[in-house]
């Protein structure tokens, strides 16, 4: 399997063309994403959905008989450009000047809305690829046969990219965009109202994505999952090429396409891993990407990070009382089972909220306190789940030791990932953590295949072989997880009275304990340095703090807590861990919860988890089919109108009431106390 197949020049050229074909679509997608980021600092998660919209419009145009492929190629992108412009006007505009983090919440909400809208209009059944007319069929050049469409994609991509380049180089619009992506303030100082150009920039990016979508639809079926499947590769291309660099997007797209193509062909076991390794490698050597400007990321220009710290209207003592009361309510909640509600509410929903609350708390430690936006936090959650389950499967079934194993493994990997990632900052950090998470997610899926390849070699060398670690997509489950060291009653089994279960109290205690430990950490000198880093990392380092080391330590603690959350979640998933535990969308969800609740407060994200999950449960249990869209709309409204999260609502109300008599207060000191 591992020996290299015979390679001829023809085959190599063949695969090179394959790589360019895929690469060109990446270029179209990434160019818009990169420009939008470069000029406006917007991390547009909905960019993939714009591509999907382009594809769907093309399908609609061709199937309704309005026009053929060529008409669709022109009309669909224009329509999507209008939608992109509207998106910028209505939702993104109110957020300028804030940290790019808020765009994650916003565009995450937009993704949900777009996906649901697409399913509502076009249904979930995939559509067949577009009829490309004269472009269908094959052509033989230099002795090998390829689809004519491949050549078309390459030519088309090159033409569009060249056109976009000309627009950027030769027009006033382009001049402003290029200048803006290097130094926005300078452009403003020159007296140019760069904000006016934002709508155009967004529409331009949407146009390019939609062209990509139509080109895609010419060779693959069009379904609702389309947008989600391209967004990660697109991010990788953008980061690889350098944020905000058009040249980078072109080079990155083609590079990824060609590398992917050759790896699939020559080293197939690296398939699915290589792009992430490529990105991690490039960022470690050139933290600003291939064509990014090293001076581009100015830490002073991050935009306003709206933590909810200090936005409470309650005194420390009253807040502490409230927190204690909350724990007391949770402690007696099971008594109401069968009377006020049934066991599902407590034993499933509340437990779920507690575990997600812990996960969100862990993220808040790095995101809310040091300003590190980890898009790969699901990695530690997933590793915690797998390690907990594997410990119970192969070593001892003890719940305590298994959870500790989950915590340790998550902390260890967090140390490694943190060591490598924290040297890059801002969005690059988000992306490199995302790449690590995806790397492991891919590994979990590929593990059975890798074992099949590696084990015979290990066996022949007399080394122990690798036991099943993930069982791929089937997931792996422990037969029993017990309270005792080697056996005894099972974790889920010990009932105190009827449906009142011991495990509920164990989880409650672990989550509350984790909160208290985190709170103490934040109130200690260590925590105050983290807050200083969030406020101004540069200043903190010039006070004499080794900020990198502090961030790494916070990252390890955070990873450990996320690992505990993952381990606990696995116990509630019938003792099973599966690749779903490493799905990057969970990273998005936990960021959303954190922002929704109010970051930088520790308790806010937990409240955010409760709000998020309660709303989701409400929608699901009432059988609302468009539950995702409703969630999306709530996020969008929230990020625009309640940016500091749920915990800031009391002070918002107070402000509203006070503002009739006097000017709104500037905000209170952010001395964090519970």
């Amino acid at each position, binding site marked *: 399997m591992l020996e290299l197949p015979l390679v001829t020049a023809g085959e190599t050229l063949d695969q090179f063309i394959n790589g360019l074909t895929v690469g060109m679509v990446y270029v179209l997608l990434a160019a818009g994403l990169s420009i939008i980021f470069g000029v406006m600092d917007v991390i547009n998660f909905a960019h993939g959905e714009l591509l999907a919209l382009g594809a769907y419009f093309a399908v609609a145009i061709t199937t309704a008989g309005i026009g053929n492929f060529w008409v669709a190629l022109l009309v669909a992108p224009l329509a999507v450009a209008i939608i992109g412009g509207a998106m910028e006007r209505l939702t993104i505009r109110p957020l300028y000047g804030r940290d790019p983090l808020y765009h994650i919440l916003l565009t995450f909400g937009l993704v949900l809305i777009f996906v649901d809208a697409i399913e509502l209009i076009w249904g979930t059944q995939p559509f067949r690829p577009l009829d490309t007319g004269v472009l269908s069929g094959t052509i033989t050049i230099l002795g090998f046969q390829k689809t004519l469409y491949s050549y078309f994609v390459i030519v088309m991509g090159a033409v569009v990219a060249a056109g976009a380049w000309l627009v950027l180089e030769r027009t006033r619009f382009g001049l402003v965009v290029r200048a803006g992506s290097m130094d926005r303030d300078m452009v403003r100082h020159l007296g140019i109202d760069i904000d006016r150009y934002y709508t155009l920039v967004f529409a331009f990016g949407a146009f390019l994505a939609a062209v990509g979508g139509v080109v895609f639809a010419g060779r693959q079926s069009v379904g609702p999952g389309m947008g989600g499947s391209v967004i990660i590769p697109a991010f990788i291309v953008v980061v690889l090429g350098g944020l905000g660099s058009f040249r980078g997007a072109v080079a990155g797209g083609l590079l990824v396409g060609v590398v992917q193509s050759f790896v699939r062909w020559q080293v197939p076991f690296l398939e699915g891993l290589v792009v992430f390794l490529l990105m991690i490698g490039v960022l470690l050597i050139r933290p600003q990407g291939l064509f990014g400007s090293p001076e581009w990321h100015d830490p*002073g220009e991050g935009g306003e990070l709206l*933590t909810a*710290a*200090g936005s409470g209207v309650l005194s420390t003592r009253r807040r502490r009382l409230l927190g204690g009361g909350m724990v007391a309510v949770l402690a007696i909640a099971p008594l109401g089972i069968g009377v006020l509600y049934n066991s599902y509410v407590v034993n499933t929903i509340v437990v779920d909220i507690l575990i997600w609350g812990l996960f969100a708390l862990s993220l808040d430690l790095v995101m809310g306190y040091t300003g590190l936006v980890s898009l790969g936090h699901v990695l530690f959650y997933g590793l915690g789940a797998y390690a907990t389950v594997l410990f119970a499967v192969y070593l001892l079934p003890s719940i305590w030791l298994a959870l500790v194993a989950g915590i340790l493994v998550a902390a260890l990997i967090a140390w490694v990932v943190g060591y490598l990632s924290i040297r890059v900052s801002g969005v690059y950090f988000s992306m490199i953590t995302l790449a690590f998470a995806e790397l492991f997610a891919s590994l979990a899926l590929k593990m059975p295949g890798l074992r099949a390849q590696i084990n015979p070699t290990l066996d022949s060398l007399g080394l122990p072989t690798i036991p099943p670690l993930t069982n791929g997509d089937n997931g792996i489950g422990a037969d029993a997880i017990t309270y005792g060291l080697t056996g005894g009653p099972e974790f889920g089994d010990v009932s105190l009275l009827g449906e009142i279960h011991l495990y509920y109290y164990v989880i409650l205690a672990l989550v509350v304990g984790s909160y208290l430990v985190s709170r*103490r*950490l934040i*109130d*200690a*000198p*260590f*925590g*105050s*340095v983290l*807050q*200083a880093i*969030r*406020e*101004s990392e*540069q*200043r*903190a*380092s*010039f*006070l*004499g*703090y*080794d*900020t990198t080391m502090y961030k790494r330590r916070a990252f390890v603690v955070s990873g450990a807590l996320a690992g505990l959350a993952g381990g606990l979640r696995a116990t509630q998933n019938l003792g099973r861990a599966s690749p779903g535990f490493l799905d990057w969308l969970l990273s998005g969800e936990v960021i959303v919860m954190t922002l929704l609740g109010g970051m930088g407060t520790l308790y806010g994200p937990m409240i955010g988890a409760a709000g998020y999950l309660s709303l989701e449960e409400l929608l699901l249990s009432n059988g609302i089919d468009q539950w995702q869209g409703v969630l999306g709309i709530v996020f969008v409204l929230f990020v625009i109108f309640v940016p500091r999260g749920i915990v800031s609502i009391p002070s918002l109300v107070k402000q509203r009431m006070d503002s009739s008599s006097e000017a709104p207060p*500037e*905000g*209170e*000191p*952010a*001395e964090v106390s519970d």
Partner: protein
Amino acid sequence: MATADDTTATFGGGEPVLETKGLTRRFGELVAVDDLDIEVGQGEFRSIIGPNGAGKTTLFNLISGALLPSEGSVVFEGEDVSQLRPHQRVHRGIGRSFQITNVFGGLTVRENVRLAAQAAIRERSPFENAFRHKDSFGDLNDRTDDVLARIGLDGRGHEQASTLAYGDRRRLEIGLVLATDPQLVMLDEPTAGMSAEETRATMELIGDVLGDRTVLLIEHDIELVMNASDRITVLNRGEELATGPPAAVAENEQVQQAYLGGGVL
């Protein structure tokens, strides 16, 4: 190197605290700092002046570690610190303030100072550092109170730093430098944007609280520089034009031509 008065003499007769040797920093084609050899003596009050783009802030960044040199070295108390990271240089005794006010705006005034004081006390156990409440360290509280009093912000510790008036924020900035207890204090335009009244008060504060330390100052206000400095270094296009006592620099023809354009001195 350009002619300069008396560049080799050390101040006060002792060993220089800070030396730059052939210090050079390029940004692409641009040479922001060009082959600088500067010596600053123990307890000296040295000002750096020069027109915009002369390389003053770049020099500060090179000394404090915000930038690494393209060539040459920075020697502090006999040790080459050129490759050290900023916090390591702070540990050696180099403290700096910033041209644009850079305090922790979201935190209280007291927390700002406390953080700086906390940074100066480094021999705590990791456990205490991570788990003991930050307000329970007596030495730290005393030191914080002391610094707050010296910068005249006592009684205002609970205010959020971002809500302070401009002049107060600059005082806080000086307080942050003071609290780290540096041997060499680098101040980057501490009076920029201040009224004449505020400027005088700030200079008095600097003289008061930092008087016994070695000070490196970037300042545009020539009168102020002339009054406060022991010696002045004039930079132009990254090169040293002259160094010497105020009077000598003021009379230097090259300086007058290049910098003052026939001047206001």
